[in-house]
């Protein structure tokens, strides 16, 4: 198996806050890796650093062997790495179809071709019935589906999903888990930031745990839940309450 994403020594400071400190991990091709940790652990910042929205102070990010640190977000996307946002960012005034076509234009500037690609992506995420709906009228889960379809339309090889389950009810979480599994089965390499442990256990083969910007553990899901360091830092708060819902939107 080839290495899809190799992250080495990634660091970022905001003023006095060390948001991400010397984080390294590797994602194999076709693997689904979860990035977990308490709020403020540096998960979303890591996503911003990997996808070019922030420039790291130090470290390197190799996507299929190519350095992406220093590239703009659109260049990172063009290299085959697409992301979604923690708070969905649909183009509200556009229809679902137009939103996804905007993503498809990256690979083909022809309207008809982009529309075909977009329709495929919309069907894949199960939004076909909403094709002509203005994006601002979508429910939360459909907005997440839209973000995934839009990212898929750029034909990525690596997909970074930032808390796609946040704000969903239990049955919607099941649908979202099924969708992430379907994405993984289609051959995509997936990095997922998530709080919903049930979902992580269901989709991730490998888990990286961050706390205060540092990696404190990584391994298979079974090892992670038994790791005393992880339990102390993070899972402790999840032992009793039901492991679902949106405590951290």
């Amino acid at each position, binding site marked *: 198996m080839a290495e899809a994403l190799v992250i080495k020594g990634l660091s970022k400071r905001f003023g006095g806050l060390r948001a991400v400190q010397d984080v390294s991990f590797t994602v194999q091709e076709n693997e689904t890796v979860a990035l977990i940790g308490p709020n403020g652990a540096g998960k979303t910042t890591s996503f911003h650093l990997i996808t070019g929205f922030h420039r790291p102070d130090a470290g390197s990010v190799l996507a299929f062997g190519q350095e992406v640190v220093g590239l703009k977000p659109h260049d990172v996307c063009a290299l085959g790495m697409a992301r979604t946002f923690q708070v969905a960012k*649909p183009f509200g005034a556009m229809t679902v179809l137009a939103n996804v076509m905007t993503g498809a*234009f990256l690979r083909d500037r022809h*309207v008809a071709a982009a529309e075909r690609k977009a329709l495929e992506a919309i069907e894949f995420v199960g939004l076909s019935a909403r094709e002509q709906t203005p994006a601002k009228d979508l429910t939360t889960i459909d907005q997440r589906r839209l973000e995934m379809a839009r990212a898929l339309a750029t034909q990525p090889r690596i997909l970074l999903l930032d808390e796609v389950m946040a704000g969903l009810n239990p049955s919607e979480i099941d649908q979202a888990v099924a969708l992430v599994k379907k994405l993984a089965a289609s051959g995509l390499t997936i990095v997922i930031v998530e709080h919903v442990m049930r979902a992580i256990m269901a989709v991730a083969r490998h888990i990286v745990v961050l706390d205060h910007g540092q990696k404190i553990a990584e391994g298979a899901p079974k090892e992670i839940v038994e790791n005393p360091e992880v339990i102390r830092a993070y899972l402790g708060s999840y032992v009793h309450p039901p492991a679902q819902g949106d405590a951290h939107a």
Partner: protein
Amino acid sequence: MQALGKMKWLWIALAIVVMIALPQIVTSSFAIDIFIRILLFSFIGVAWNLMGGYAKQLSLGHAAYFGLGAYTSTIMQVNYGISPWIGMMAGGVAAMLASLPIGWLCFRLRGPYFTIATIATAQVLMLVFLKFRDFAWGAEGTTVPNLGSAPLMMQFEEKSSYYYVVLGLLAVGLWVTHRIEKSWMGYYLVAIGEDEDAAEAIGVNAPKVKRDIYMLSAFLTALAGTFYTQYIYFIDPATAFSFNVSIEAALVSIVGGIGTLWGPVIGTVLLETTSALLQSWLGSSVGGIQLTVYSLILMAVILWRPTGLIGFATDLYHRYARRKPAHA
């Protein structure tokens, strides 16, 4: 769908015939003057709308390009005897080139800060042209030499000829907008206007797209500047870089409906007609009444129909169409 398409072409053909026949039927020079103003500001609105409407980059500095277009062609004509038709294109290119550094500076800012920066650029250019007395005549400006009937120098005896020139400009502006709206560029512009980060995340090179559309918008605005100077035979920094031009370009689009093909045209028809008629009927008796009514229209649109008159018409159409499904 097919029938709808045919209907559309029928309407467009009808509109073209009416627009061409109009100055032959209504021959009062007062009316033609109003038509010319409407067409001119529609065209400026259309040029502004490409960037300000679709990509929601609210510029209030388009007078910079209007003035550059006006000055480039007038300097070429008065000092070197070059036809304003050529000067018009040169002015467009000058505006495009000027938009590069101006955009480079202003696009670092977003929202209200961007808008303020654009205002500043137009004001700075006005000051520059006030200072250049040697080749740009300073504050007193200059008149364009009247050559009588000289179509090759963009001078006509008939007012209706100016009407056809500016009608042609508007047609070009609308055609360009239509082509952009239907292409990937149109999607990219709207996406940037909606959420620049989300657009970047799906591969949209936002700085490049904004730079390109700004260049195009500046080019078209400059053509209007040349035309206006030829039409009034006079240029000075205060008219060429008038803040009113910047405001009008934005307002007609906002009133008509930003980010829509016909929005600027509909907005201009309403605002210019109202203002011209009120001024001629009441201007002398009740001072400033046309400005008051003008402001009231603006407030009404912004309060009740922030999507502009186009949005209002679309809502009405959908309501009507839904009640009569046979027509849908």
